[in-house]
């Protein structure tokens, strides 16, 4: 059993915070505080180090924002659960093992289960539920892809190390790393600003990503109907046509703002499928950073569905419209929402017309005070766990790097539901 005062050096630590889940971090623990020793982006560092502050380590369980003992809070939560006719267990960010517990929890109370980002991730699943899809994974892109197209205004902020680790790496096994060509298409100014290093292999094309389908259509027809200058378009088209392994990458969380999100993704996917008749190409959709993939996968193998499930007695059913968590909350059709937020820093938007319990790591943000707040540890910092990477292929081990200040989300769930 380690003591609080022990100093420990860690290497090859997995970051739980963005869906790339980089696993090369060096950390030092002194007095149970975390110090990131790797030369990485400040925002990545901060996600670890912000957990060192005293205020973060002294959060108590609360009922109506008043501190209470854990037992009192558990008792009150049980009461809210008992009084509720319809309870939504809402995954706001969890690793695989919390996600497993969430499904078990929902079945115990005949509740509804959904993930906070399901509207976004269902758009990607929709593609292969309706038509063909060719996809790839990070190491394939790093080692085999010679031309990479990324649609984004903000990707480097959401996935800070995507470019250096995957899209424009120093080493590549099957293609010459220095011969790779990476097109980042979107808000040029923003994309350049957020870029970690200058790299001549990367070309930024200024473009409104709402018009992505039009660009794809232009590429298909080999005729430019977009706002991109013809000479730039033609060079881009030629690169694509000469590519040996084209990757097209996007984050659905960005495209979702587009009313035609599904059509946009679908047009990219169809284009990629058609290229594969003669050459090789693949899609790399980037998943959300709130344990989205771990939720899809875990719920998938346990129930056959990615989210939006209701348990009733001995059985469960999936209904994409009826058990849509955010809609249930907005339309006041739920009595109680239990948010479980193990990892994310995204602000939770609560509805005061229903009761709210948050089981969340201590820096969880929310807009209005919940009825109950119970702080929990973070998998990958306080507890061991497992998390799926954005490409759905690799699952990474999360390690308990420090002595936990708070109970695990699983333990809390078991306590309030038994």
């Amino acid at each position, binding site marked *: 059993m380690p003591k609080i005062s022990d100093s420990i050096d860690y290497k090859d630590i997995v970051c739980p915070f963005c869906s790339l889940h980089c696993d090369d971090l060096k950390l030092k623990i002194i007095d149970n505080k975390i110090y990131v020793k790797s030369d990485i982006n400040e925002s990545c560092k901060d996600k670890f180090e912000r957990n060192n502050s005293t205020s973060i380590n002294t959060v108590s369980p609360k009922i109506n924002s008043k501190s209470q003992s854990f037992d009192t809070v558990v008792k009150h939560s049980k009461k809210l659960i008992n009084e509720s006719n319809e309870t939504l267990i809402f995954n706001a960010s969890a690793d695989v093992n919390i996600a497993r517990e969430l499904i078990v929890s929902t079945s115990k109370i005949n509740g509804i289960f959904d993930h906070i980002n399901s509207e976004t991730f269902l758009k990607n699943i929709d593609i292969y539920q309706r038509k063909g899809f060719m996809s790839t994974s990070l190491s394939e892109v790093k080692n085999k892809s010679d031309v990479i197209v990324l649609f984004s205004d903000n990707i480097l902020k959401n996935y800070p190390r995507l470019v250096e680790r995957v899209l424009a790496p120093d080493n590549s*096994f099957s293609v010459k790393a220095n011969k790779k060509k990476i097109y980042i298409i979107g808000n040029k100014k923003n994309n350049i600003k957020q870029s970690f290093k200058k790299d001549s292999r990367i070309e930024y094309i200024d473009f409104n990503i709402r018009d992505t389908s039009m660009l794809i259509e232009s590429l298909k027809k080999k005729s430019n109907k977009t706002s991109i200058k013809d000479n730039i378009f033609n060079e881009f088209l030629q690169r694509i046509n000469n590519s040996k392994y084209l990757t097209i990458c996007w984050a659905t969380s960005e495209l979702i703002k587009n009313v035609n999100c599904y059509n946009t993704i679908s047009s990219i996917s169809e284009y990629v499928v058609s290229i594969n008749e003669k050459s090789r190409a693949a899609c790399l959709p980037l998943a959300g950073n709130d344990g989205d993939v771990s939720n899809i996968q875990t719920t998938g*193998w346990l129930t056959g569905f990615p989210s939006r499930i209701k348990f009733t007695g001995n059985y469960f*059913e999936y209904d994409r419209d009826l058990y849509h968590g955010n809609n249930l909350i907005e339309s006041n059709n739920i009595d109680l929402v239990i948010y479980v937020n193990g990892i994310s820093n995204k602000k939770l938007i609560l509805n005061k017309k229903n009761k709210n319990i948050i089981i969340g790591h201590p820096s969880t943000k929310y807009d209005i005070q919940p009825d109950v707040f119970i702080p929990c540890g973070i998998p990958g910092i306080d507890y061991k766990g497992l998390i799926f990477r954005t490409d759905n292929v690799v699952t990474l081990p999360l390690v308990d790097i420090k002595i936990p200040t708070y109970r695990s989300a699983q333990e809390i769930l078991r306590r309030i539901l038994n």
Partner: protein
Amino acid sequence: MTTIHLKNGHVFDPANRVYNKKKDVFIQDGKVVKSLKKKSDQIINCTDKIIMPGAIDLHTHIGGGKVNIARLMLQEFHNNSDRDYDLTADFVPSTLKTGLQYIGMGYTSCFEPALLPMNARQSHLEMADIPFVDKGGYALLGNDDYLLAMIAKGAHQSEINDYVAFILKASQCIGIKVVNAGGINAFKFNQRALDVDEQSIRYKVTPRKIVNVLARAVYELGVPHPLHVHCSNLGVPGNFKSTIETIKAAEGLPIHITHIQFHSYGDNGDRKFSSASAEITEYLNKVPNLTCDVGQIMFGQTVTMSGDSMKQHKNHKHAHPKKWLCMDIECDAGCGVVPFKYKDQSFVNALQWAIGLETFLLAEDAEKIFLTTDHPNGGPFTSYPHLIKLLMDKTFRDDLLDRLAVDIKEHTILKDIKREYTLSEIATMTRSAPAKILGLKNKGSLSAGSDADITVYDKKLNDIEEMFAHPSHVIKDGILVVKNSVVQDYIWGKTQVVKPEYDPSIEKKLDKHFKKFNTIGLSNFAISNDEMSEVIGSDVNENECLRKRIS
């Protein structure tokens, strides 16, 4: 732990040459024992019962990325109107339902044959959530850039052996499988076919060489299960020749050819599609060190899932319903998920059905052929009882053949085959033989000291399909988990693995390679026993190698 006395049963225990003998079986502390010192806690009257060791499925796709893609892709087949606990489709059941269905049929161990090392955690996670049964995986090699580059530069066999042994340990597997050797990799470089003696463009390596090197590695390391091979040219008319060439690639070393039905096609006749089961089984019957499983097809909707992205990409044109997914995976392998409906109106599908049955019936030795549908590729594992009836009952079989919507009688010798499998042969092919070929010393047998994984069937049921579908009692690790055909409380099985020794210097080389080219580090790639039990949720049982490593 409670003791159980199975009294006066008709015992089939081929591992001990016991065939239909009136006997008692005693169980204590999870094991079969010779006798009990005290009166047993539970006596089950087996006067009208058949007792066999628990069945073992050595090739069933039950956990991993492609299985989960199929679950999510085909959700319209999860039946919302049936108010059972679990509504997932039989061909893509949830993990929970997988365990419930297997144990309900008397299966106590199941093996996932296509575990991608890079996807190993997911496979183990899914399998850990399958209740009741023991499980294990075969690690997929032979399309990974690392191995192909090693072969291309002429690495010494002992270095390859080190790599193979490392992969077995790191991915917590019990065997090695190769799928379309080199072909999945070649597809990433835009090759669309790769015959046994054809060189890949990128590595200039042939499938023959890959199979040879891997079969040798498995043999020299002393891994009990022979190299598990999904041949080149899956589903291609005339492919029986390349199947035989693939077998020859092992140069007499042990080799297991999986779902051989899909690789036993001729190209004769006006349809240019014919049965080559006679050629294949003739070979099987005469060549030692060769085993196979069949991959029988069943009519109806299913989904095909395979590491063979090269062939699955080609097959997507036959998708039913019209949707599919192919993926390149981590310089490791690939996958293709294509839903498919086998129709008895289709000449090709009907003949595939007959070819599978011919193969079963022409194979002389029940120790060399195993009962599989390559779940779910040929059909769901829940069709095993039906398949057993087809093998044991000629009248039933001939009736079905007569009733097929398309007449294939000129193209199959099925009617001429008189053979009916005996219960002893069924017991061999589903119990003792798979245990032996997997190196599971304590399974597939009722000798004292064996794991008490036991299935009790009701002899009074005069329909053999009904009898195999609903055993009256199933015991797993000494616990009565099915009682009067009703599944009892959940228990959780173990993960069966094998860990041959290797020179640790391979880890240094791999570490360098991972750092430079992969997107995770070696230390996060390998799965420890502690992680298996504490985090993934399944305890590991290490099986012995056949002998010390040769080179």
